């Protein structure tokens, strides 16, 4: 408190902060980026460890024998799928009943706001089939879910086969203390959304579904399985869910522990773990893995069918079988044993997974970075905003003694840009779907945006503003951005960090006195839309699938439409966040640049 109450020391501190404002800001930015890049360096990260007692110390023995039979069932499923041209509901029900499960179906239908070009669907109608294996050992108050999507074409037949094989095997075991629900969902996430809403009696997105006839206990954990070949080389773990939410780290630990025990190659973000962390290539490998996670998390969309479970407090992950050209092969029996082991451990849970971390980044499957380590990187960027705000505050509070006239800008001159930019944001939020209803081709976002920007530039150039005026506006805008980014980073660190990386420099340097054309160019380059465009290219680069500019542009447009679809189908928050809050905030800085 000495610093706050002693006027001399306060004055010294404030004068230091205002005099060295720019250098401190630059150092903070560099330090923030350096800190973030350092996170992937292995000595700075922690090894993963199992925190949950119930899963850590108990031994289980895996005995699942029937991999071949499961694959045969998968082939049968595939044949029936081809015959019915969709989900073979009758066959699935009969098969599940034959395995001794209680079988139920759920029908659902949903009309998308506009046709989804990636998956070629508009009016979606489908059926989920699920069977419940009742727990013989305990009251049926808790449940586990194993799901496999019924995808179009030849995909995922093996997953359904393995699911049925496991159901048959699990049925004959006596140790289950939780209900196990085997779910085959149609139309991937839409089916999953319908099933979860039906299970929890909620309806958040206005979808039509028939109520569930049979339910188990409260779901503790869920795994979603994706297998497309009889033999796989490695298993990939997908964690990123809706709005960048992640399951408890213990679920990842469990998967990793069993992969180690059974001897299956396991990857995260499709990247194998490397041991040479001290070499340059090893480090860049870890950075790539982490950056992929950051990009996926920032997108806010579910990257597997598990993504929607997280919304209901259910820890869930997707396990993907990958068949590449590696020497190392794994058959269906081994994967079955792995899943059996994981379910037996989950069966031992006494309470929900909560011991381990919920906020983490993974540079490899065996190492993680917790919130305490990665938040300073964001904090260093956010401090810049606060320093600029302090600088502006000091500038604003000193001069009024000298120039008494016109020192206080009217509330109106401050309110107008705020209201206008937010109205533009609302328009950007509403228009795409409205436009899509009128015209079938892509909505002209970029053209609209250009018109808006010139309109605002002209408007601000015409209307007179005072020197104090832009300072007040910038103070408001900077604080607004700081609070906005802070909240975003708490919910979805990656999104907050990427936005901070591009918007903080803008917020820091924009004044009406910098060269207009150059700054306008920089401002456009660092706008949220361009950030997304760069992210698309960067993501492709990280996945080692570089694309041409033309394809990149098309991908960019499809990413936007996917974002809108995710918002209206599953309630993803990224699209409204960007259009309603981040974009207006960026417009305020545009407004300051063209302040007259």
């Amino acid at each position, binding site marked *: 408190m000495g610093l706050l109450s002693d006027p001399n020391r306060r004055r010294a501190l404030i004068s230091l902060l205002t005099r060295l404002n720019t250098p401190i800001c630059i150092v903070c930015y560099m330090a923030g980026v350096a800190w973030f890049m350092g996170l992937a360096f292995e000595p700075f990260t922690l090894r993963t460890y199992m925190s949950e007692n119930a899963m850590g110390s108990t031994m289980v023995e895996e005995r699942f024998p029937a991999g071949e039979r499961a694959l045969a069932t998968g082939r049968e499923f595939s044949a029936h799928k081809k015959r019915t041209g969709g989900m073979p509901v009758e066959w699935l029900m009969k098969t599940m009943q034959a395995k001794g499960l209680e079988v139920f179906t759920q029908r659902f239908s949903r009309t998308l706001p506009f046709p989804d070009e990636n998956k070629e669907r508009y009016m979606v109608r489908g059926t989920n089939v699920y069977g419940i294996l009742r727990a013989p050992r305990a009251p049926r108050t808790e449940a586990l879910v194993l799901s496999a999507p019924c995808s179009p074409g030849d995909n995922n037949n093996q997953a359904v086969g393995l699911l049925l094989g496991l159901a048959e095997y699990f049925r004959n075991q006596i140790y289950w203390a939780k209900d196990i629900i085997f779910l085959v969902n149609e139309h991937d996430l839409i089916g999953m959304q319908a099933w979860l809403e039906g299970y929890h009696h909620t309806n958040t997105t206005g979808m039509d579904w028939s109520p569930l006839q049979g339910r188990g206990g409260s779901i503790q954990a869920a795994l979603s399985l994706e297998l497309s070949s009889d033999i796989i080389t490695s298993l990939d773990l997908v964690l990123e869910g809706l709005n960048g939410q992640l399951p408890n780290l213990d679920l990842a630990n469990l998967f990793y522990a069993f992969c180690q025990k059974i001897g299956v190659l396991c990857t995260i973000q499709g990247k194998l773990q490397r041991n040479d962390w001290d070499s340059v290539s090893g480090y860049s490998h870890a950075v790539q893995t982490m950056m992929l996670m950051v990009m996926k998390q920032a997108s806010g969309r579910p990257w597997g069918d598990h993504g929607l479970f997280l919304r209901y407090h259910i820890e869930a992950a997707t396990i993907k079988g990958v068949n590449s050209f590696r020497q190392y092969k794994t058959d269906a029996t081994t994967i079955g044993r792995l899943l059996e082991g994981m379910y037996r451990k989950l069966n031992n849970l006494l309470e929900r997974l909560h011991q381990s971390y919920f906020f983490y980044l993974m540079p490899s499957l065996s190492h993680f970075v917790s919130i305490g380590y990665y938040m300073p990187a964001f904090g260093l960027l956010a401090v810049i905003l606060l320093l600029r705000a302090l600088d502006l505050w000091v500038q604003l509070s000193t001069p009024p003694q000298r120039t008494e006239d016109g020192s206080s800008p009217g509330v109106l001159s401050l309110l107008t840009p705020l209201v206008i930019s937010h109205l533009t944001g609302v328009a950007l939020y509403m228009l795409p779907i409205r436009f899509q209803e009128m015209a079938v081709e892509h909505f002209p976002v970029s053209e609209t945006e250009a018109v808006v920007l010139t309109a605002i530039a002209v408007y601000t150039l015409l209307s007179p503003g005072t020197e104090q005026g832009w300072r007040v506006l910038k103070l408001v805008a900077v604080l607004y951005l700081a609070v906005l980014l802070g909240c975003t980073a*708490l919910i979805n660190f990656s999104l907050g960090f990427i936005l901070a990386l591009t918007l903080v420099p803008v917020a820091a340097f924009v004044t009406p006195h910098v060269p207009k054309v150059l700054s306008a160019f920089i401002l456009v380059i660092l706008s949220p839309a361009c950030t997304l465009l760069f992210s698309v290219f960067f993501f492709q680069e990280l996945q080692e699938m570089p694309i041409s500019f033309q394809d990149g542009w098309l991908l960019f447009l499809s990413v936007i439409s996917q974002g809108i679809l995710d918002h209206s189908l599953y309630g993803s928050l990224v699209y409204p966040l960007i259009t309603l809050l981040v974009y207006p905030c960026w417009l305020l800085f545009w407004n300051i640049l063209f302040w007259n």
Partner: protein
Amino acid sequence: MAAPLTLLLLVAVTVRAALFRSSLSELISERVEVVSPLTAWKRVIEGLALLDLGVSPYSGDVFHETPLTIYLFHFLVDYAEVTFMLADVITAVALYMAVKDYNKQVFRKQKFALEADRYPLDCLELIRSPKEMYYIPLKVAMFYLLNPFTILSCVAKSTCGLNNAIIALFILSTIKGNVLLSAIFLSLATYQSIYPLTLCAPALLYLMQRQYIPVNFRRASFWWFIVQYAFMYLGSLFVIICLSFFLLGSWDYLPSVYGFILSVPDLTPNIGLFWYFFAEMFEHFRLFFLCVFQINVFFYTIPLSIKLKEHPVFLIFMQLAVISIFKSYPTVGDISLYMAFLPVWSHLHRFLRNIFLVSCVLLACSALFPVLWHLWIYAGSANSNFYYAITLLFNVAQILLVSDYFYAFLRREHHLTYGLYLKRKDGSEATLVLK
């Protein structure tokens, strides 16, 4: 001045009416920051339902409003939205009139002091001009009506708005010098939520100042006035309590309302300091810390009254702030009441030291409350510690804000007696340090 006030009232009512009609109102009325177990509208509805069934509304553990409130809504339940809007309007108008009157007195006092040459010469820039004081009442009304906290509180139909209206009427009648009305409204406010009891100190000081009764323990007139006020206060409190008893036919409401406020059995998270502390505590220590926490609210009355005995209206502001920070079930509606007074002290701005820091923290915390609530309750990834950390920060910022205003007020008074540019004994420029 009537036209801008009318316009302001119209804007405020429009905003509220629009929000009442939107889907947001449902969401807002569920927020723990906006409604507490004491003030939630949902509980009032429950109490009304019990009353209609002929059961005592206090028989469950849901309803904790006072009997007068429930009988008020027994008649007005269909017009609840209008009632809450009206309560806000009454508060704003009462504050407007009170501050207008107060400013007149301040100005008159300043004029007398100037004529008597009581201020040092270099203090002329501290003298307040009527031009800058002209818009203060309007600003007070605006700060109350357009404060997002008030709007949220009104849209959630939190009965906190009614309590605020009663306190505002108490302030108005005190400043107008009406002893009887002041005592009646104070007893009503005490009846509603106990804590406004501490406002009797500033009320007494103000009324005595107005009637030129010296604050001196040896003078009979001082004690005579206190006895008079206490008689009116206790008398009206007695009448109200008996009225409640006759309306309800039982004393059920005493433990259910006042016991509930004082013993804090409901530990639903809110923006106050009680819930986390008492949730974590061993049952063994509960009574002791309960006493400590509750005495905390009342204790500041004594030192503050001694220090601010010449400035009772500032004391009212301080007391309101202390109550809204330390009370057992605070909501944002309580905060908005004392924040409405901030424009009255706009002349202190040059002496405020941490206002930038504090306003940044308050702003950030207000935004973080719903975010951390979401992470804790819906996403399940954060926990109660995250939410309590923000609560703590929010309250620290409020305390800093209030103590900053307190310091600035005292400093201005100091300058008004000793001159603005203080010199040390050796002639160099001196600085005031708070230690």
